[in-house]
């Protein structure tokens, strides 16, 4: 009984809309990036993506560069609480404890955290500790500092271990942030290593999602998804598609 409700929740998830728009999903060995200025809602989106994987029983590693890990745990609790508000879901989400066993948070302090070290620890978790992650969330990597070189290390790693990796990229530069193709100018050097690039932009009360690059193709397009400002969940946008760059 509870499984059918959970299945329905997975099926109805707005993340299915996202997958459809990006040729069926990010896919193993690929890197996806959510880019926006600070405070727009990238972490919320990443946690929603992770929660969706966990609901499907897929193990997730959440890599963060923050100074504390407790608030990341709170993010997950909050998002599961919001998801549990769906009809008949409350019983299914009594299994929160079970679901969350499939998530590991790995925190690296910014100063000492070279990508080689991060990947070494990830490999230890996946290979030595047998935590068979299918997706990795990387929140807070400094793209300006990492550059295309370190991104390529991530790409190789994802390919070798069969992972899909979602990043957040915080854009800090001066306006205009995006070039004529909609590509964040700061991320241009990294573009070849990125498979799916999505930008988040304020539009009225909501944050909207624009697909910039889909598996190597530059294809700017409104994803018809937005972030609900109260629940911080991704939801389908209603009304006609907006004109993107």
């Amino acid at each position, binding site marked *: 009984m509870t499984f059918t409700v959970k299945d329905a929740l997975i099926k109805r998830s707005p993340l299915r809309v996202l997958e459809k728009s990006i040729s069926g999903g990010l896919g193993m060995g690929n890197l996806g990036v959510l880019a926006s200025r600070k405070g727009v809602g990238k972490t919320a989106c990443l946690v929603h993506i992770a929660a969706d994987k966990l609901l499907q029983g897929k193990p997730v590693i959440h890599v963060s560069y923050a100074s*504390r*890990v407790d608030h990341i745990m709170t993010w997950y609790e909050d998002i599961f609480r919001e998801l549990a508000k769906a009809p008949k879901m409350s019983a299914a989400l009594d299994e929160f404890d079970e679901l969350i066993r499939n998530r590991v948070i*790995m925190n*690296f*302090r910014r100063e*000492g955290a070279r990508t080689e070290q991060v990947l070494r*620890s990830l490999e230890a978790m996946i290979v030595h*500790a047998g*935590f068979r992650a299918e997706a990795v969330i990387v929140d807070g990597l400094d793209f300006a500092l990492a550059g295309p070189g370190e991104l390529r290390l991530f790409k190789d790693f994802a390919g070798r271990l069969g992972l899909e990796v979602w990043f957040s990229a915080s854009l800090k530069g001066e306006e205009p942030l995006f070039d004529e193709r909609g590509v964040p100018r700061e991320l241009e050097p990294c573009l070849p290593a990125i498979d799916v690039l999505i930008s988040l932009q304020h539009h009225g009360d909501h944050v909207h999602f624009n697909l910039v690059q889909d598996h190597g193709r530059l294809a700017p397009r409104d994803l018809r998804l937005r972030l609900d400002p109260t629940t911080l969940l991704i939801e389908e946008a209603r009304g006609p598609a907006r004109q993107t760059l």
Partner: protein
Amino acid sequence: MNGDIASMRNIGISAHIDSGKTTLTERILFYCKKIHKVHEVKGRDGVGATMDSMDLERERGISIASATTNVAWAGRSINIIDTPGHVDFTIEVERSLRVLDSAVLVLCSVGGVQSQTITVDRQLRRYNVPFIAFVNKLDRVGANPFKVRDQLEAKLGHRAVLMQLPIGLEGSFEGLVDLVRMTALYFDGADGETVRVGPVPGGLAAEAARKREELLDAASLHSDELTEALLEGRATEALVQDAVRRGVLARKLVPVFLGSAYRNKGIQPLLDAVVDYLPHPGEVENRAADLDAGGVERVLAPDPAAKAVALAFKLEDGPYGQLTYIRVYQGGLRKGDELVNTRSGQRIKVGRLVRMHADTMVEIGEARCGEIVALFGVDCASGDTFCGPGLNLAMTSIHVPEPVVSLAIAPVDKAAADRLAKALGRFTKEDPTFRTHVDPESNQTIIQGMGELHLDVYVERMKREYRAEVATGMPQVAYREAIGRQADFDYTHRKQTGGAGQYARVIGRLEPFSKGAFEFASEVRGGRIPRDFIPSCEKGFRAALKKGALIGFPVTGVRVVLVDGNFHPVDSSDLAFQTAAQAAFKQAYMGAKPRLLEPVMKVSVEGPAEFAGSVFATISQRRGTIVSSVEDGTVSRVDAEVPLAEMFGYATVLRSLTQGKAEFTMEFLKYGRVPAPQAEVLMERRLERSRSVTPR
């Protein structure tokens, strides 16, 4: 030393294991002239630090039981409790915190805020204990007191402020700059006993000025007077001290002091700080429940003239009989005074009264309000309250966790058996988390405690202190049983074997219950079961809970609803209904999808980042869930949830895996479900055991 309450300090020294607090205590005793020579904890001189009074502690180089001692500094009387650092013994830490007015939190300048520090901090918070911080081991390679101060803020959420600056660090650590007086302090003489005051070294002047600014900023939040004085440029030493003191008492400010106990640096200023910034007993509010007024809480008056109220917080079996450590909260005690133990109602007469210094003692004629002393020849348990005649108060009971590990022990011979009984009696009185019983099935003596090491220490103490040699079995986890769904029962108990018969019928259901261990409800209408027998049914169900049918461990989380039943006017009795209820429970239990629960521990492993991968592997091999891993440069911490059953011997595994460079702490988190394969093994084992027990 005057007898005024304002001149007393009751402090605890709390820390992560190995931050050097025993060495620190040793130095304090030395500078207060309680001992005439300093020893090291793991000393080459074979004497060991004075505070680790038990042989065992000397051997292991760790503090186990809190020893209390009294010292005099700057005309003040300071009672110090040396608290143990290992999580297995936190009941000791908690008990000490209950009787102390304040604490010194010792941190290692290399390790900083570690997992145990977080536990201790939580305890200080729970008992609302004000404290100052001491960052020790500034002579060590990698010492960074600034990082430790930052961690006090980032990891523990305290407003921490440096009161001193180091002059040099690591191998070149020479002395301290006092940021209140803006002077440099050096510690001369063979044992650092002479404090030499000098000008602040030129190279440090700018930084000292900046840090002093930070100190004044933080302190001025707690005193308008200081704020005003600062604006007018007339801040005095006394004003700054007063403001910091207010911040400390309100637990809103943590002044950070620095030093190296091992190198004899920074101890005297720390003692000054204890006197200057920590509260005296009269400044701390203590409460007790008034048993004559239905348990209403009353604030105790720190008034020497009031009737006495004292708490027995620790018992020890010394060479001269039982020693009871007490803290006087109200009034005073004199030799010959009569007191009442409000738990047992027993009256006692105060006999010998002593002040303790590790394991030597000084006889005193009276103990004043606020003091910590020891009584001889008093029969009582830890946590008992003693009151003057006419009072009936109970000090708030100390939070005691349920034991999670048990161990079967057997004395090797008859003589050992007698001594063992004596040892067990003593230990259970001393330590509420240590319990013992005889298993009726195997007839074995079982001891229970908070962890493997906890029980190990007691087994060794049996040998050393009581010459009671015992053989031990494998440590056993305290499993629980619970039900997974509702199940109905309808049971009739009938017995007719000549004489009075027995008859009782109970109908109802068992339900899973998440709010507690057990609830009983009766929905019986129309006298189908006479009212007098309803409690008999409850009693029967309670008895049935003690041993679940799966593996014989207590059943928890059950609600029993009694719906209907039947009785016989002659043959029904209290006993008949109890028996019926027990049998009804057994009847319904297997239909209620019973499952096994096991204690799951919160485990925290800290060590060099290079071993993180190996640590991950050890956790997952033990059915553990890694919750998070934090890497901060070269140091890593892994937080995980691991079933206790898998944690036996982990210390050894971790040590050999990381060349002794990683350490772990664990504490009880919750009861979690035992996975089916492990549950089957447990049930199989239980079956084998019951087969092997031959009926007598």
